[in-house]
């Protein structure tokens, strides 16, 4: 009986083993592997962002940080004291280290200090033999050699926020950085690469015993942009003297942005490691909006720079010919409202070319009245206003081209003709980004629906290789009309009496055309109309007008377009050419001077075309024209 009982119990044991080891074995094998195998992700190095010549705007910088392995260090306090005598270890660092050590396993390295300088490195390396458990480790941090000057266009990277998590475990790595703005954000997928994995065997305490397998990741690809680092630098240095500027230099033929600046800028580097609340507070409270890319996200009334649009619309619609004369007595009355010209005593009788050249407001009030808002708005949209241009960085704003429907929808009131007049000089509800103004001119000088872009993935690094020019569709505006308007902008700069004559480029072959503008920040009061305008020094900075200038060069076969908006930089009643014009002039001169090889005629450049339909205008001094 005893034997039978024991035999039965042994059978129970064998049965239980059969159940565990044979029937349920698969489940336990999985559990055992989950126990022992840890999958660790390896962060891929992020791709660089390069200019068209291969100069890096964003790079990875090797940095060194000091780590301590608690179980090897033994007396942590003593080790920290020893380190503090070599390099600076703040009280906050010290507390964080002690806290981390308490929380983590004793074999997990804890970072004591990041970003060691060479000097600090040297001091530690010498002392390391006496400091068990202390070592210097390498890491990669994003670096931006151009710092503030390209921060808006290149963008920055920062730690992944909760809303950006997609389930990709790579994003959950503590040292992973994701593009937050600019090219860093728009090309993030390219730059990111893919994570490698390392399968490690760990014991019950989490200590890594050995590496079982390693799948190397794919490093992020470099992104080549159409930017020209030298021009970017030049533009930024040219603008830095102003308080608040947005400026874009564009290749009118390819749509590539060569330089884009928004002043004031910000240093993208601290974002990588994490901004302090104080820094963030300072950046976001600044009235000059350093974090905003004003070239694409700043919207301004385009002012007189809008007049070429009105001229093009009027000529295309046939409400005006180059011969149509309009008299400017200094103001225009419509109903019981009076619309003033910037020149108090008027321009007298003049035709379209002179009206552009002298930027006569009354001429364009009348032109807009004849044209009507519908046709004006349609041409403005065709030239790139009123909606985002699809630039390949985030943050573009649409601006605004008012229309009857818009007015009714937003205010509930019907459109009034007075608003058409105001729109005729680019004021009132008309809002545009600096980039839109530049694109408008690029479209006028090429006759094609040019769109801007930054990335150059299909073209790679090259100097002046135009073999793969983008094929923009034709604008659908008569070349004769375009040639006439472009010629008018030539007159603005290069003819005596033009509003920007003082800003002309005198060097033969380098001449630019352009259009100045002033955008009012506040209405000019009746009092001022009657008693004269206040002196610039009497007006608070925030209330001063914006000064605008858009220029193109060369005047023959224009290739480059530069727009500059100096916020609150205008002299009330002036043209913006005094502040913004010289910047465009210098930049357009520099870009032509720098690379003569690039001064090849673009296809279909309207300035090359003869303008047969209309009698040629007298050109007193039009260099290169």
């Amino acid at each position, binding site marked *: 009986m*005893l*034997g039978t009982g*024991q035999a039965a*119990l*042994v059978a*129970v*044991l*064998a049965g*239980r*083993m*059969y159940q*565990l*080891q*044979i029937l*349920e*074995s698969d*489940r*336990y*094998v999985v*559990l*055992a*592997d989950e*126990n*022992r195998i840890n999958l660790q992700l390896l962060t891929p190095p992020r791709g660089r962002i390069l200019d068209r010549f291969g100069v890096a705007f964003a790079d990875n910088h090797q940095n060194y940080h000091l780590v301590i392995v608690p179980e090897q260090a033994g007396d942590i306090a003593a080790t920290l004291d020893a380190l503090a005598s070599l390099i600076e270890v703040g009280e906050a660092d010290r507390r964080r280290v002690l806290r981390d050590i308490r929380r983590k396993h004793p074999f997990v390295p804890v970072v004591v200090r990041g970003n060691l300088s060479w000097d600090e490195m040297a001091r530690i390396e010498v002392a390391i033999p006496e400091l068990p458990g202390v070592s210097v480790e390498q890491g990669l941090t994003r670096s931006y050699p151009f710092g503030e000057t390209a921060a808006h266009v290149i963008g920055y990277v920062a730690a992944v926020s909760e809303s950006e998590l997609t389930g990709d475990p790579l994003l959950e790595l503590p040292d992973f950085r994701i593009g937050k703005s600019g090219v860093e954000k728009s090309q993030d997928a390219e730059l990111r690469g893919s994570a490698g994995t390392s399968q490690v*065997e*760990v*014991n*019950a*305490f989490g200590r890594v*015993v050995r590496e079982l397998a390693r799948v190397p990741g794919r490093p992020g690809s470099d992104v080549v942009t159409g930017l020209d680092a030298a021009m970017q630098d030049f533009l930024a240095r040219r603008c830095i003297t102003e308080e608040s500027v947005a400026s874009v230099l564009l290749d009118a033929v390819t749509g590539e942005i060569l330089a884009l600046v928004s002043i004031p800028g910000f240093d993208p580097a601290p974002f990588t490691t994490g901004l302090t609340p104080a820094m963030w507070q300072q950046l976001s409270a600044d009235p000059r909006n350093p974090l905003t890319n004003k070239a694409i996200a700043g919207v301004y009334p385009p002012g007189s720079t809008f007049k070429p649009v009105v001229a093009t619309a009027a000529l295309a619609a046939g409400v005006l010919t180059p011969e149509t004369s309009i008299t400017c007595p200094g103001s225009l009355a419509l109903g019981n409202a009076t619309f003033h010209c910037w020149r108090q005593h008027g321009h007298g009788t003049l035709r379209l070319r002179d009206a552009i050249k002298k930027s006569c407001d009354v001429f364009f009030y009348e032109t807009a009245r004849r044209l009507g808002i519908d046709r004006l708005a349609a041409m403005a949209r065709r030239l790139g206003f009123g909606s985002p241009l699809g630039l390949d960085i985030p943050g573009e704003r649409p601006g605004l081209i008012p229309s009857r429907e818009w007015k009714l929808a937003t205010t509930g009131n019907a459109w009034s003709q007075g608003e058409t007049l105001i729109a005729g000089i680019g004021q009132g509800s008309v809002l545009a980004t600096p980039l839109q103004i530049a694109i408008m001119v690029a479209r006028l000088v090429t006759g094609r629906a040019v769109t801007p872009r930054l990335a150059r993935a299909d073209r790679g690094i090259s100097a002046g290789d135009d073999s793969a020019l983008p094929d923009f569709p034709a604008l659908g505006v008569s070349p004769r009309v375009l040639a006439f308007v472009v010629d008018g902008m030539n007159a603005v700069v290069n003819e005596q009496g033009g509003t920007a004559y003082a800003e002309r480029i005198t060097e033969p072959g380098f001449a630019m055309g352009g259009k100045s503008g002033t955008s009012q920040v506040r209405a000019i009061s009746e009092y001022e109309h009657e008693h004269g305008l206040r002196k610039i020094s009497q007006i608070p900075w925030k209330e001063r007008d914006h000064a605008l200038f858009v220029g193109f060069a060369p005047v023959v076969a224009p290739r480059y377009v530069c727009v500059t908006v100096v916020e609150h930089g205008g002299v009330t009643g002036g043209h913006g050419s005094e502040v913004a014009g010289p910047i465009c002039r210098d930049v357009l001169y520099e870009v032509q001077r720098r690379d003569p090889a690039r001064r090849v005629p673009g296809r279909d450049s309207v300035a090359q075309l003869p303008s047969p339909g209309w009698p040629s205008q007298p050109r007193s001094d039009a260099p290169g024209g």
Partner: protein
Amino acid sequence: MASLSADLVQREPRLWQRIRAISWGLVLLICTAACFGVAVLYSAADGNMEPWAAKQTMRFAITLILMVGAALIDIRLWFRAAYWVYAIALALVVAVDLRGFVGMGAQRWIDLGVIQLQPSELMNVAVVLALARYFHSLANEDAERIRYLILPALMVLVPAALVLKQPDLGTAIMLLMGGVVLFFIAGVRLRFFLLTAATAAAALPGVWHFLRDYQKNRIYTFLDPDSDPLGAGYHILQSKIALGSGGLFGKGFLQGSQSHLSFLPEKQTDFIFTTLAEEFGYAGGLGLLALYTLIIVYGFAIALRSRNHFGRLLGLGIVTNFFLYVFINTAMVMGLIPVVGVPLPLISYGGTAILAVMLGFGLLINVGVHRDTRLNRSGARRPG
């Protein structure tokens, strides 16, 4: 008297005869199991003889000699010394309670310098020895009278209570169950067991009160091992994972991830069966169980072939004890019964465990060697 003594001399087996009478087959089986144990200890130390395998080999060698010695001593000597052995063992248990060495949260050891003696393990053998003598001297019909059962019951209950107080639940259970089986073999009626079982059930709440928190936890954990996988249930869950992931043929010698990466607790002592079954699989685990079964069958054969009641009781008691060790340990690591600290005989690392087991085997072989010796009730050899 002269003829009697001549008779004695004549019938007394000579030393070499006794050596020849030793069941060398059983010794071989024991050695095989011990070798298996050393191999697993070698693996448990990540392929090192230190710290366990070498020491265990030495201990086995010494206790092997002790076993043979115990086997060759005249069984009558054992018979006469039975109560003394019991008394000494009991004294040691009491000594542990009084000035025991505190380890693992439990007082179990006496540090003798070279060995940390765990008297409760020796108590197992002593109880079997004492009960065998008691029941040998008791007439069969007396075994049914309850007043003759009070003394042997106390002989079991007193040390069991002392051991439980140490606290060593596993050994206490071993003592009780070993005692019960011996009562059964001695011919005590089944109704006494039922009566005792009923009393024990009634006393259970009281016993529960005496259990330490960790012992209560172990029972809770047994009832629902998944309730706290990182806490109290961790050991048994990891043990099941190790067993299950071993599969049919195991992960291979030195390849057990659960034991080598320290997921398995007590891999060299109480959970050594898991270490073994992880590396050698179902085949290896079943092989060891088969080896144990052979040893037990051998033991039964030896015990049943003894012509004296004392020998039969002693042999069966020791074999049963051995079986209980094996069953409780393996059932525990498989999650069939709550975790109680019982080592796997011949395999687990530990000095006293192997000493007790080998002494037991010595007595078992002794029964075999002296199977023809007749003993009267007082222990003197019966006249032929």
